[in-house]
């Protein structure tokens, strides 16, 4: 199943956990900073490397764009990494004016937080289609 990387400012942890919970409820995989922190405690790989590994393995990238995120260097860092890997990026806007965001964070595809459920339904549908296509391709082999 497709995995989504959730990028967020640590000041927005509660909101990010709510989003991750919604993903889980919808039957979708999502990875957050907390997953990287948990695995970093177990292993010797630095936290940033864990984050980047999680990002590389993800199919989609979702960024929570809040006032906190705009000034958080980690968000720009992860956005740059996601752009570099040509990930499918969706920005979830929370209380900021998308037109006033810095160019790097200016979203190509954005939704408001209130539209999350609709986004998750579409993502679930897409994930099913992709799984079927993959299954079909495997069967053809």
């Amino acid at each position: 199943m497709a995995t989504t990387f959730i990028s967020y400012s640590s000041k927005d942890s509660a909101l990010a956990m709510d989003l991750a919970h919604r993903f889980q409820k919808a039957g979708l995989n999502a990875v957050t900073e907390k997953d990287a922190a948990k695995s970093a405690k177990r292993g010797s790989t630095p936290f940033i490397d864990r984050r980047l590994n999680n990002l590389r393995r993800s199919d989609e990238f979702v960024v929570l764009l809040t006032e906190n995120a705009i000034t958080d260097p980690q968000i720009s860092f992860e956005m740059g990494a996601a752009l570099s890997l040509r990930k499918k990026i969706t920005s979830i806007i929370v209380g900021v004016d998308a037109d006033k965001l810095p160019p790097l964070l200016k979203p190509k595809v954005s939704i408001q937080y209130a539209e999350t459920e609709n986004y998750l339904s579409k993502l679930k549908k897409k994930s099913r289609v992709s799984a079927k296509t993959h299954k079909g391709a495997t069967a053809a082999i």
Partner: protein
Amino acid sequence: MAEKIRALGATVWIYEKDLEGGDIIMDAIFSGIDACNEAIVLVSPDSVVSPWVMGEIGAVLVQHKRLTPILNHTKPDDIVLLKGVAAIQLNDFEQFLTQLKKRFQQQKHN
């Protein structure tokens, strides 16, 4: 810095010089990063708060490329995300050039 690196025979991509009219800035920057073997980041009081610079650092590191921070009036830990990456002071830039030259020769040899 770019001129000194060029003098070693390396190709340099630098935003101010290599961006052409009509280029989509973001695409051009990421293509530049795709094409490079390694990158340097000038860590100055301005760049540590620049979203662009942070984004470029993320783009380079996620591609497993070598990144050398060059410190100008900053400390190595001014960019937390570069923790664990050896930095060089701007005053010691010649030291970086010597190391780069060595890497360059090794690549040619291989």
